[in-house]
């Protein structure tokens, strides 16, 4: 946080007309703007998001040039911005007035749009305490891009702290309260026992009879966060299980080891999909011996009927008519290799009609978004875009080896997306 404030001061002091804190100035002359190309000329796509975030966090103006050279950013040309770009290894190009006019004319005439980025979103990651950061792609991406965030878990959510944030990412939590059905493989391991103990303590603290009830209450608070204007981004099993928890408010769908009761044999028929954000009509997997939650997931990675990975294709939207989905799919690649997660992708026939598909492979949807009340949600299947078969205990993905990862770019598109409009007021 201190570094963030210092950076803001540095950017402001380095702004045209301001005092230079860098001294010298004998190097390149400042142009009016710096273009951050996001096509294949960019040396470090992921850190370009961090640079842009810090520019707007420092009170300077930035623009997102949708569909222009992979979704480039236009930043003010100050010594501070140049310095930060160099430190982060982000490619920038000085743009003079005439060239900028040509770019704007092209944006005007083609399927492109210039979106002002106004407010750096306050970011929260829902993650259990003591969880290593390398196990969550969003945490990895934010750390690598140097985008500040705070972590929250059940206690903070239930105490109303989500109101302090604009953007919430859900770690790969199991909101059905079944510990991702890890009992099948990891029963007796210390980390799973710790997780059970931690969750049961939290349930008792907030007066819930069991962990599934605790998680359902948390899911409801998260839903309220969205409806009241928040931005929700979920990956992996958090996508599917959040909706299962919301839709199962009056039916027991959990295996007996989670709450001591047998699940409702008619669980699938008794789900209330009106409460869910993205999905409907799914068959619930209530068997304790099958490591899947429902048939929403198209790949069923931990079952004998696992589907193989392919590649998903990003949709191209009209940047002027549909700027929101356009922002979410900005990329220098349009076809991206798929990657497994507990929930890898989603069956297209399980989506609600209001969902907007952002990327798909045949009838499998990888990436989708939608509105709920005043806010929006975006779901991205899979666990780690650069580790297609990530296993528990695997070494963390080193993003220094993947600075141009198109899969990770999709995560970071979501971070800047809320910056494209004024921060919504939440009560």
């Amino acid at each position, binding site marked *: 946080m201190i*570094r963030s404030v210092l950076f803001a001061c540095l950017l402001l002091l380095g702004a045209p007309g301001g005092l230079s804190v*860098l*001294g*010298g*100035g*004998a*190097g*390149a*002359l*400042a142009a009016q703007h710096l273009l951050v190309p996001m096509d294949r000329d960019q040396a470090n796509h992921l850190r370009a998001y961090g640079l842009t975030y810090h520019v707007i966090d420092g009170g300077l103006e930035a623009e997102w040039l949708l569909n222009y050279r992979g979704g480039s950013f236009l930043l003010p040309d100050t*010594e501070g911005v*140049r*310095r930060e*770009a*160099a*430190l*982060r*290894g982000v490619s*920038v*190009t*000085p743009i003079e007035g005439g060239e900028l006019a040509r770019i704007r004319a092209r944006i005007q005439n083609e399927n492109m749009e210039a979106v002002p980025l106004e407010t750096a979103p306050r970011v929260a990651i829902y993650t259990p305490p003591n969880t290593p950061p390398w196990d969550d792609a969003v945490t990895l991406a934010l750390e690598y891009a140097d985008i500040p965030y705070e972590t929250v878990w059940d206690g903070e959510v239930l105490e109303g702290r989500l109101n302090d944030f604009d953007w919430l990412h859900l770690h790969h939590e199991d909101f059905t309260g079944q510990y991702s059905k890890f009992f099948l493989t990891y029963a007796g391991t210390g980390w799973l026992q710790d997780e059970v103990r931690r969750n049961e303590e939290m349930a008792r603290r907030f007066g819930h009879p069991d962990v599934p009830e605790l998680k359902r209450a948390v899911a409801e608070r998260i839903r309220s966060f969205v409806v009241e204007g928040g931005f929700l981004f979920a990956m992996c099993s958090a996508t599917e299980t959040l909706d299962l928890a919301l839709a199962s408010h009056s039916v027991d769908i959990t295996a007996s080891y989670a709450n001591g009761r047998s699940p409702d044999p008619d669980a699938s028929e008794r789900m209330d999909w009106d409460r869910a954000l993205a999905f409907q009509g799914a068959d619930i997997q209530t068997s304790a011996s099958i490591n899947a939650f429902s048939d929403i997931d198209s790949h069923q990675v931990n079952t004998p009927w696992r589907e193989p990975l392919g590649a998903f294709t990003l949709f191209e939207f009209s940047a002027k008519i549909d700027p929101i989905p356009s922002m979410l799919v900005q990329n220098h690649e349009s076809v991206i290799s798929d990657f497994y997660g507990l929930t890898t992708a989603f069956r297209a026939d399980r989506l609600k009609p209001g969902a907007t598909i952002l990327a798909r492979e045949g009838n499998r949807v990888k990436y989708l978004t939608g509105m709920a009340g005043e806010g929006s949600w975006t779901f991205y299947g899979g666990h780690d875009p650069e580790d297609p078969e990530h296993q528990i205990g695997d070494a963390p993905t080193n993003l*220094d080896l993947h600075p141009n990862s198109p899969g990770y770019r999709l995560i970071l598109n979501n971070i800047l997306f809320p910056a494209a409009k004024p921060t919504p007021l939440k009560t």
Partner: protein
Amino acid sequence: MRSFCTPTASAPVSVAGSVPGSVPGFLSVLVLGLLLGLGPGPLVSGLAAQDVRDGGATVRADEEPFLPADVVALLENEDTRDRGVLELARLAGTLPPDLATPWIQLLALSRGVPGEWVGASARAVLKSHDGAEAEALAEIRGLLVRVEAAADSDPGVDPSGTGGEPSISIAPLLALAAALADPVDSEAGGELRDRIVRDWPDAREFPEAALRLARHLLADPERAPRGLSILEELVVRRPSHPVAPEARRLRQEALARGVTPGDAPEPNLPDLHE
């Protein structure tokens, strides 16, 4: 490895008018050396001189490189220096990494500086190569003292890098001295690189010197802040240099350890077109 002193009929050096590696060429010079009462050391130089007297030098790619002593002999003589530089390049490419560094630094030094620097530096490198590392460091330091003392009367040399537009940089000499200091006195190596960082920020030697100096300083908690500042100066000044990614990685590591930047020379705007 081929030596002037070890004639081999199968690997001649292609020199117009003579084949010094061949038995007749070798014998004629050997005889000349004996006649002049030269010992083994001067004999090597005598061979080099013979080489030059026979005309210009070209090197065939399929030949074995010369021994270090022979390369130094070529470099010491103004008339054979060009050939010596070619042989130095070949030699540096054959040495294991732990031995190659001073020779590579010598190669960088060997063009565009006074011949005295090259010869004296080559002798120091050879001493280090032969295990007399402290002696080598003393010798190169002596050369640095002489160069700086002479700088007052030579407007072409600016030992500080801040006195206008000198035509001759001592940064390569400092870099070589630092390389020779490393095995003997890492602190001395750091001090020499510090001079490059402070006084020669535009020199070709700056990025590597800055990176190594920063590594040296980051290992010491008290000096780590300055190490971090030097890394930042490096990536801001040379954002596209090949060592910049490693500098960024080290910077991230240092930041993650809680190091904050300390005192360092203020950098200028980066050259975005580098």
